[in-house]
């Protein structure tokens, strides 16, 4: 009897569960997976993350290892992507270069988030003078051409992975701040916020428990799209010689170095260029897919 009662209860729960509307995450995933390009982008990104962050295990040699007597070799069974002008295995260099690009992409967008999101929230929540000051700061920063400002900062701070992360982060927080502010300005007028306020919730509590979760979808999209931009900025800065120091591999610097060799050693330009293109494409597809999945209003 008891057994029968419990099975009936379980069956009822199962039915209820089947009828329960899918979560926001499930909904977004379903929408995301419906887009072929987004899935291709995700596969590319995952693949690049595996070969980039797995480089210390997967790469044939360390990025610093060079045998001068093997310099300038074309792709072969021994060196699948050939070697560079001082005998580095080029496959290893491209793998480590991908790691550098991903690291710079993620970390610099992290810096941008740390600066942009709190400032945007502050402006959106507080309004008044706070909003005025933050927005004037955003406008002043917008007046500087991003790349030139980044070159200036890199020249002052000096080249290096740490500095390039800071510099790209500090020049790319504006979009996130503006987006977050705009989201909060809209959301804070919603009834549920007024209800929370009438129940005595603090600004902090309202921001963290009610506003942030509702504003996060477009921000995630912006972050995803900011990553390839940051990666391309690193490649550009390294290309002009103010990015990352040797021997740390940078895809942008590899492309720049190849310019003097490319008429003979085509592989030195082709493979890092392909890697940059793949990274850009992968993240752009994923970003577009996430936008469609998370923020249908913008679609």
């Amino acid at each position, binding site marked *: 009897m008891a057994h029968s009662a419990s099975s009936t209860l379980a069956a009822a729960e199962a039915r209820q569960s089947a009828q329960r509307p899918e979560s926001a995450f499930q909904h977004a995933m379903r929408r995301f997976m419906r887009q072929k390009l987004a899935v291709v982008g995700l596969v590319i990104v995952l693949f690049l993350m595996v070969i980039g962050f797995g480089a210390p295990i997967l790469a044939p040699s360390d990025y610093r290892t060079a045998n001068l007597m093997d310099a300038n070799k074309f792709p072969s069974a021994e060196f699948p992507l050939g070697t560079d002008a001082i005998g580095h295995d080029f496959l290893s260099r491209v793998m480590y270069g991908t790691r550098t690009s991903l690291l710079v992409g993620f970390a610099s967008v992290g810096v941008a988030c740390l600066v942009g999101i709190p400032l945007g929230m502050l402006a959106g929540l507080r309004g008044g003078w706070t909003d005025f000051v933050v927005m004037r700061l955003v406008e002043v920063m917008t007046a500087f051409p991003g790349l030139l400002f980044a070159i200036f900062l890199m020249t002052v701070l000096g080249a290096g992975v740490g500095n390039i992360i800071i510099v790209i982060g500090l020049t790319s927080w504006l979009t996130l701040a503006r987006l977050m502010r705009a989201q909060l300005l809209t959301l804070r007028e919603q009834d549920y916020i007024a209800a929370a306020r009438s129940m005595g919730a603090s600004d902090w509590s309202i921001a963290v428990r009610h506003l942030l979760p509702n504003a996060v979808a477009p921000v995630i999209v912006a972050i995803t799209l900011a990553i390839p931009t940051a990666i391309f900025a690193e490649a550009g800065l390294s290309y002009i010689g103010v990015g990352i*120091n*040797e021997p740390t591999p940078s895809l942008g610097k590899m492309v720049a170095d190849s310019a*003097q*060799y490319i008429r003979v050693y085509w592989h030195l330009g082709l493979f890092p260029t392909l890697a940059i293109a793949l990274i850009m494409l992968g993240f752009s597809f994923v970003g577009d897919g996430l936008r469609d999945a998370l923020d249908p209003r913008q679609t």
Partner: protein
Amino acid sequence: MKDRQYLPDLVKTMRPQDRSFFTALLSRRTALKLGAAGLAGSTFLGYSSATARQSADAVMQNGELPEDAAPLEEQVLRFASDGTTAKAFDFYETVYERAGISTVFSVPLVRLNKNFEIIPGTASEWSSNEEGTIWTFKLKEGLMWSDDTPVTAADFVRTFQYSADPEHAWDFTWFWDGNILNYTEALAGEVPLEEIGVRQGANEYEVIFETVDPAPYLPAKLLYSAPLSAKALDTHGPLYNANPETCVTCGPFKLEEFSRDQQVVLTRNEKYTGDLQIPIQKIINKFAAPSTHFTMYEAGETDYMDNPAPAEIQIIQGDPEMSEQMYQGVGDFGCFYFFFDVNTSPFDDLKVRQAFSHVLDREAMQQQIWGPSGIPAPSFLAPGFPGSNTEELAGIQNFDPETAKQLLAEAGYPDGEGFPDLVLQVRGGGSPIEDATCQAYASMLAEHLNINVEIQTLDRQAFYAAMNAKPTEILFGWVSYGQDYFDPSNMLGVWLSGGRHPWSNEEYDRLVTEATSLVGDDEARLAMFQDAERILVEDVPAVFAYFATPIQMAKPYLVGPALEPDANGIQAIHWPGWELASTVLEEIYISADAPTGRQ
């Protein structure tokens, strides 16, 4: 042309036991050493340059072109240069921001022929007092500026005063600083410009130079003495030669066009009254990024280029026709080297510096990186430069990783343990060969000594400011130095205490200072310089990497003695190249084989 031999090729043809470039260059070095001794002798007391001088091997005789030359209107020379910093044409306006071709509107007191011998320029002869501190240069008479005023001592005096004027802020004052009497004080604004040691002699065709110390090398140093017109400078102000309207010249060329982002065009000065017979009637210098120079040359847009990139050299060497157009010169005998701040740990330890000197595999670099563009440098003075002693010094900074490891262990860093990570600082705008050399050396330090080296490229101006700061701000760096005048005092003077680098050695200072001023004993003088260089190499304030042997390309129709072997068998356009401090322009012409209408 077909049996032309390049320096590395000479090495390859030798027996294994002799296969060192030092041996290969011995005959050339010895010959040049003798030439250098002759040069040094030519500067000594009471010597009159007119007595036994060499001269240009001019191709024009009595104004007539050689029989195989193209007609006058086709005597046009075209080349490309990076014009991003082109600002002026006169040495005493700016040294580092000159256009690709400069020193064409006046002739220095002395010139250099293709055997690196000093020959008369605007001065017909010169002599000094007993001590070698007062030098009198007699100017050729009858030479006129294009504004119909004569070239006199006043032009030289005004030019040197202008260079010392703090308001002018000339970028090469160090060259005369501490050398010409009162020059340092004038730069500091402590004495009037009129009191520097450059003045008119007994008449307006006599210039007198007074030096702080005996200066037997002064005539060689006055290769940099092409004057400005005193009248034009006072009338039109600085940079008057950068404008065709105000250009005043006493040389064979005048400024026709200076389009700052496009090109410079020089045409013949109809009022030229000098004695240089130059076949070329027009020079077109096109401004373009260096990476495009080879393409322009291939496309027939230029007649000459230098310093092709490594891959371009491979293309050239793989093409029978183009390889015939390739020449390998010695440039300015430039030495490229890694330097240390010897006053700061870990490089204050000689054993560490010695260890670093033994892991540079010059042979591998020669084979894989430098190719024909450089030869190994075991010391500072390049083969062929006076006082060069590469053969004797070759064993001091040799490639010997085992000894390097042992020395590093003795210094307290067994297998590199505890050794700090380093940053190798290099100047921006270096050639691909320089970049590859630095990267390869960093790799060798990691491989043999387990030392991590990061390479940081600095903006050129920031690099030099950091290197020259007192105390220096660069712990470990990469730079080069090439001659300004053909005397060991020039190159070795760089390493004197208080000079370019923080290294200091009393015995070295004594030898170089005494030899620099030594008058009357060439052999003893060179021996002192060689002893000094040995100290320099043994104390390792720097690891010397390579001597540049720049590659030049000249179209087959560009012919003349300038491109034929010199007295030492070297076949290339010699430093200082396409300017009137050199005899190149008298020794080259366009043959009738050139395509017409190249303009």
